[in-house]
């Protein structure tokens, strides 16, 4: 199919024909990735450069495609949780919640209050861990010289480690937790866990100002301010969500706007919004969210009500859950934005497994902005922009 120009001023044309570009210019084609530290995984992007300036970018995702959606069609509802853990491997808790909420909606399973509290707390602690990992890798993307070599990276990973320890105490796993089930939780809060949560989050919240001091010096500001501006219209059309959308000045957060779990009881949830839409704004939004998530998790951990942690009966055999058939869409707010699950369930004999499970990964939409944002920037800025998008290739490619 011949590419047709998609002229939508003022955005760059992603299907620019480089043959029509200034014939005097000395164009260079650079292949970034798929194995390059700045691409945060296996992401490949072909860049056309005029001197140092990018005129066109062609992204090629798909190197990590495992066919998760196909696999889910063969598994029963109770068996899917550990598979989706591997999608967004930086925030697996949220992946489990997203699919299980869709299954609960489809199967009509009630989640008890204690489990809903636990889910909210786990989601917020996981958000802290995810944003810390992003902060560390973003500082490294901008050059090791920021914040004294790889210091910020190492410090952030140290804090994230303490959160992984918390999850290990709760679930026995450090990474792929498999702690959510259809109807509730698999692991109850162990004795003394709340005190550990307070201690860990208190330590992290005291250190955030230190990282800000380390990072916000003139070089960091120059490399992020005004770089990679995404305007609100483009962000909405592309389907950018989460910190990327809020950094572009759109006040939208599913935790407040379409509350699930117990977010409807959190009347004072502060949504971080910045209007500039550049890398600096995205950094500011995420640091504000770090603080807010710590506050919410610490506020809730003392108020978890007693009661059962699962509304579903204990799983005795696969295929215990039978769907009647139908279609639901559920979206939740992960550290990267709206993680949606579009579930088409078969009825009758096909009620054990999803007929079709479509996962809507926020990172896929984030990466789709690359052809619109890269042109006009230098190659080194491209790395900064890619880092600020916080893509996780596991969920982009699924």
């Amino acid at each position: 199919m011949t590419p047709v120009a998609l002229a939508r001023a003022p955005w760059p044309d992603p299907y620019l024909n480089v043959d029509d570009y200034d014939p005097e210019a000395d164009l260079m084609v650079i292949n970034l990735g798929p194995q390059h530290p700045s691409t945060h995984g296996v992401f490949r992007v072909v860049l056309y450069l005029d001197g140092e300036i990018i005129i066109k970018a062609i992204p090629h995702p798909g190197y990590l495609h495992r066919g998760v959606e196909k696999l889910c069609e063969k598994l029963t509802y109770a068996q899917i949780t550990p598979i989706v853990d591997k999608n967004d491997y930086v925030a697996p808790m949220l992946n489990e919640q997203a699919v299980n909420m869709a299954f609960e909606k489809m199967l009509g399973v009630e989640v008890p209050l204690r489990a809903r509290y636990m889910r909210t707390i786990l989601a917020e602690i996981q958000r802290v861990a995810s944003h810390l990992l992003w902060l560390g890798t973003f500082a490294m993307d901008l050059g090791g010289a920021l914040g004294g070599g790889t210091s910020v990276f190492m410090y952030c990973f140290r804090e994230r480690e303490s959160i992984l320890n918390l999850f290990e105490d709760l679930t026995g796993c450090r990474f792929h937790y498999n702690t959510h089930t259809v109807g509730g939780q698999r692991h109850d809060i162990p004795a003394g866990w709340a005190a550990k949560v307070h201690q860990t989050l208190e330590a992290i919240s005291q250190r955030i100002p230190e990282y800000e001091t380390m990072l916000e010096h003139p070089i960091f500001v120059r490399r992020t301010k005004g770089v990679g501006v995404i305007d609100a219209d483009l962000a909405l059309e592309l389907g950018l969500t989460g910190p990327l959308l809020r950094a572009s000045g759109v006040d939208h957060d599913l935790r407040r706007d379409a509350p699930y779990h117990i977010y409807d009881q959190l009347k004072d949830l502060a949504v971080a919004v910045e209007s500039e839409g550049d890398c600096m704004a995205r950094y500011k939004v995420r640091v504000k969210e770090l603080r807010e998530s710590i506050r919410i998790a610490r506020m809730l951990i003392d108020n978890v009500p007693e009661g059962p942690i699962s509304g579903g009966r204990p799983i005795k055999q696969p295929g215990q859950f039978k769907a009647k058939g139908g279609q639901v869409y559920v979206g939740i707010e992960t550290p990267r934005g709206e993680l949606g699950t579009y579930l088409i369930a078969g009825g009758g004999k096909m009620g054990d497994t999803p007929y079709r499970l479509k996962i809507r990964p926020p990172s896929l939409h984030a990466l789709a902005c690359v052809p619109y944002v890269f042109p006009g920037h230098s190659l080194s800025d491209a790395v900064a922009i890619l880092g600020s998008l916080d893509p996780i290739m596991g969920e982009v490619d699924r």
Partner: protein
Amino acid sequence: MSESENNTRELAFRRLLRAQFGVEGEPEAPLPDDGPLVAREHHKALAKALQAAGWRLYVTCAATHFPAVPGKKPTDATTPECFEVATVLRSVGPGTHVARWRVKLAADETIDSLVRVFVGADWQEREQFDLVGVIFAGHPDLRRLMMPEDWVGHPLRRDYAIDTPHAPWR
């Protein structure tokens, strides 16, 4: 307040579907739980109308394959192979409302691409073309997104066996 916003949007969505896009029923009667079915000629116009009316966030699209089902008795007619494309949009801010609709396609039919309404539809439609094999007419760059360019078949079709052998890696 946010809930009333959501209700207002839901009613506006119902009225719009019934007034201009041929969905059956009273103007403000509830829509089916599975999402309303819209004729494929209306698909792009509906997306445009919704965007203009405030559903500005492109969320996702999901194509599904329904293989031909033989009748229960030999005399019964076979249900022909078909596809279904579901599209999801959102309004932003407090009381966000999800607008979703479905379009049914026969095996040889195409659906209009939404790339010129929402640029975010670009990759989503490429992915659905790649994995399910639905053709999005008017898409400027309908290439495979996830699978290798020379892959044969569309893996997310229901009749594509999960253990389909493929040529050794090139």
